[in-house]
């Protein structure tokens, strides 16, 4: 287990706080400017989704090392309505065509690992990871 910190998402300002925390942690892990921006963008997208679709939730950030490799993991969780058609949401061109930003495929591209668990009426949990190379 590494060092874990979190930001609760209630308002749009909390998205900025989550971004700030993410950027700092990414920097501490050793990521360069471009990867810092990528990790921050992914956090921003997940936090915005919580704010827009679930109302409230949480972004947790953890730096870790495994077999000498360093990385960062972000967990976005909410107790919102869940994602009704996850296959559609993961399709290119679905969310972006409506101008909603990078969408889930975008978040997936920005990171190395992407895991989503969603249950109707229970909530959504998205875990993303990026490794330092």
């Amino acid at each position, binding site marked *: 287990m590494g060092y874990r910190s979190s930001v609760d998402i209630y308002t749009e300002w909390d998205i900025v706080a989550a971004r700030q925390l993410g950027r700092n942690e990414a920097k501490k892990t050793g990521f360069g*400017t471009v990867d810092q*921006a990528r990790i921050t*963008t992914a956090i921003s997208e997940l936090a915005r989704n919580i704010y827009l679709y679930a109302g409230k939730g949480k972004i947790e950030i953890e730096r870790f090392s495994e077999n000498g490799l360093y990385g960062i993991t972000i967990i976005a969780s909410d107790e919102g309505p869940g994602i009704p058609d996850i296959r559609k949401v993961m399709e290119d061109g679905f969310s972006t065509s409506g101008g909603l930003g990078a969408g889930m495929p975008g978040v997936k591209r920005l990171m190395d690992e992407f895991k989503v668990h969603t249950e109707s009426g229970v909530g959504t949990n998205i875990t993303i990871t990026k490794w330092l190379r």
Partner: protein
Amino acid sequence: MPQEVGKQYKELLQQYIDNRNEEDLYFGQQFSRQFIEKKIAPEDVISIHKTALAEVFPDLPEKVMYSFDFLIEMMIHYGLALREHQSLIRKQEEIQMEINVAAKVQDTLLKTKIPDFEGIDIGFITEPAKKMNGDYVYFLNDDNNVASVALADVMGKGIPAALCMSMIKFGMDSLQGENTSPRNVLDIVNRIVEKSVDDSMFISMFYGKYDARDSSFSYASAGHEPALIYRASEGGFTELDAKGLLLGVQPDVDYEERSVMLEVGDFIVMMTDGVTEVRTETGFIDEGLIKSILLEVKEESAQSIADTVYNRLLELQNFHLRDDFTIIIFKKENDLV
């Protein structure tokens, strides 16, 4: 590899700053192709630029350098949009390949053989507007004296029309052994279509049957475009139309059946609305145009008549078909002895 790219970029940048030649810009652009090939994202390009700049001008104010961090942030979504675009292009290629395969399947499914016997010359052409055809032509050759044809037009075009049309094919296949009078054929196909197609699909159909023994052509129509008959003795055309509702609207339809006698030199023209509703830049073509083309080539073979009408109308539309296009010609050659 990125370090090597960064080193080369720095050299090109340094050269341009020193000389500001068109040549250096040209080399720069050539170099950018490598970036694309190596899938270097726009935000990475900014980062490479920032690093190179810091080496070329070590004394640049810190605040200027910060501006590149801002620019990197600005480019992240551009990078994502680019990758999404690339992935959508790959997806489109996959769909295109699927459609090509489907069109081949359709071609096999729709193979039909023109009846070939003494006394009647038959020709036809059917061309889809897109890859898959919503027009359908099927010949039946019950015995050596009877040639029948079914011509159906599924409204709309492309894949939905093509899927719908394969059902008509099975309807026709189920006719074996049945009474194949035009009204009976339409009645059977109508019942099949009515059961299997949703209400938004409209299909029209013309069924014609030529009997060489008495030179009669009997026909029935399910809301289809009227056929034309050319009378050699009069040198003019008459419409062949029969009352009947589109296929699949209701289960019990009483299709009218009519018949005409053919003389030597007479021919019948069956078409879909892709022929009659040809549009040019100035609007729909004049009804008389098709007739005048037909008159010009009336002495030629049935296939040549069909091909000529197609080629002329295709040219008029600047080689762009707006709707599936089908034309069938039955031409009486001589009497049976």
